[in-house]
């Protein structure tokens, strides 16, 4: 190679500048094409659901749909709460106290996404080895607090953002 070819010249600058501007331009066009696939405004508008819980007896649960996903609302009996709190945290794959999964003073209400954290199936209630839920798809067992105990699921069932509007109404989302 001769010396002139190695030297950085005006043409190299033009090439680099053109590539850079071109890359920015392509990125600016590609991003809208990617982002259009994210949840749209209509989907986001469905972000909250209010549920009347006055008719749920202790020990019973209902399932409501929130953002297309089932949410379990369970009114637990004192025995079930005691059982959930008696568990040694060292026995849990994803250690979390039962107290952290409910609202303080509303300990009987367990509100959680009824979605198995493995691959998204809906677990069946009052089944499995731990008196809680059992996912029929790949065999994950959850306890009365919805915590994973056995099987391929990596984490406890998720607690969504929720609040008590009054004593009889829960707002999810």
């Amino acid at each position, binding site marked *: 190679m001769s010396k002139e070819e190695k030297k950085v010249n005006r043409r190299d600058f033009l090439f680099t500048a053109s590539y850079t501007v071109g890359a920015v331009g392509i990125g600016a066009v590609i991003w809208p094409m*990617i982002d259009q*696939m*994210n*949840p*749209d405004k209509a*989907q986001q508008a469905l972000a909250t659901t209010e549920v009347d819980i006055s008719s749920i007896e202790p020990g019973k649960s209902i*399932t409501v*749909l929130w*953002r*297309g*996903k*089932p949410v379990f609302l369970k009114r637990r009996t004192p025995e079930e709460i005691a059982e959930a709190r008696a568990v040694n945290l060292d026995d849990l794959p994803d250690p979390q106290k039962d107290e952290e999964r409910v609202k303080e003073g509303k300990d009987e209400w367990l509100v959680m996404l009824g979605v198995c954290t*493995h*691959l*998204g*199936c*809906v677990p069946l209630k009052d089944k499995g080895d731990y008196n809680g839920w059992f*996912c*029929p*798809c*790949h*065999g994950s067992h959850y306890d009365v607090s919805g915590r994973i105990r056995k*099987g*391929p*699921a*990596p984490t406890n069932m998720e607690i969504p953002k929720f609040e008590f509007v009054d004593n009889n109404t829960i707002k999810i989302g």
Partner: protein
Amino acid sequence: MSEHEYTPKSKAGKWFNDRLPLLTLGAHLTDYPTPKNLNYWWTFGGILTFCLITQIVTGIVLAMHYVAHADLAFASVEHIMRDVNYGWLIRYIHSNGASMFFLAVYIHIFRSLFYGSYKSPREVIWIIGLLIYLLMMAAAFMGYVLPWGQMSFWGATVITNLFSAIPLVGDSITTWLWGAYSVDNPTLNRFFSLHYLIPFLILGLVVLHIWALHVPGNNNPVGIDIKKPSKDTVPFHPYITIKDAFALLVFMIIFAGFVFFTPNVLGHSDNYIPANPLVTPAHIVPEWYLLPFYAILRSVPDKLGGVILMFSAIFILFVLPWLDTSKVRSAVFRPIYRQFFWILVIDVLMLGYVGAMPAEGIYLVLARVGTIYYFLHFIVVMPVVGYLEKTDPIPMSISEPVLTGVAEPSIARKVNDKI
């Protein structure tokens, strides 16, 4: 491509061919020198082309009647089945056609594994073929979602949730795939769009697959390089076309048997229940052609580990040409590899079987044994056997076993040696 020059006979033909050499291409495809010893395992390329065209034609017709909306999709499929003229026939051809497509592609892939068709100089053909196979799986999965039955919905949920295993960005990716916070109408819409697109991508790759094939020419059951054209080759037309046509006819009889006599045997009755996001069917299984990979996924007690292993099971095939260290292509001359090949066949069939069974007890044990062997076969057996194995003598040409009157090519050389 073709070495020899071609000149159209008619003046108009010559005029056109000078401007766009389509007639040259046609002549190349007609005269294409093909090994004369190709057996019926080589007819599946043609059968697969037929399958692709069948899926595209029936799919375009079905799209004229189908509605891609969560509230209407299920009813529109029933409308196709009950109201549309011959709708039942077209849909059953399309749904069973997917299974027949996979049946043919698996035979095609194992043919390649047995006769070493993936080896130099045909690596690119192999890799393009695997890309086609990946797209086929994507198309089949999305197509299965479209009727919006229970299996559609929960199959889509389970498969898209595989991506949530990716650390950090997993959940964002799943939401992005869904276009919602669960599998919902936006998911159905985009799956329909992509399901319509993918077959045409496959068609493009098929053109590249055949193009790449026509550079070195076909492998053959003996697996040796041949001069072309020579005594060892015959023109593609009419010799191979007629053989392909006969095989296709037999294949179509089996195909028609499914369509007319047991159109639902390969499906799941749960998919005739409309999708319900509140209830998961008790026993979720994918379509039969994905079962071996499903068994691998479930054999690992860890979410991310299972997903990684399942994808590795497919992607390991891409480096197969470099994992196989044997210089000899055809397993006909590889006494040790030949046995491992059949173990692999049995292993994959077994994985498919346990994939359909509940993941517990003996099935889980079998799934784990099967998974371990699957990977051992490619990572250990192929490099080591290729290195250590003493292969049988290889004939000098294809004509040799024929001309010496010995049917089994592996002993042809020994007979020749005596002479």
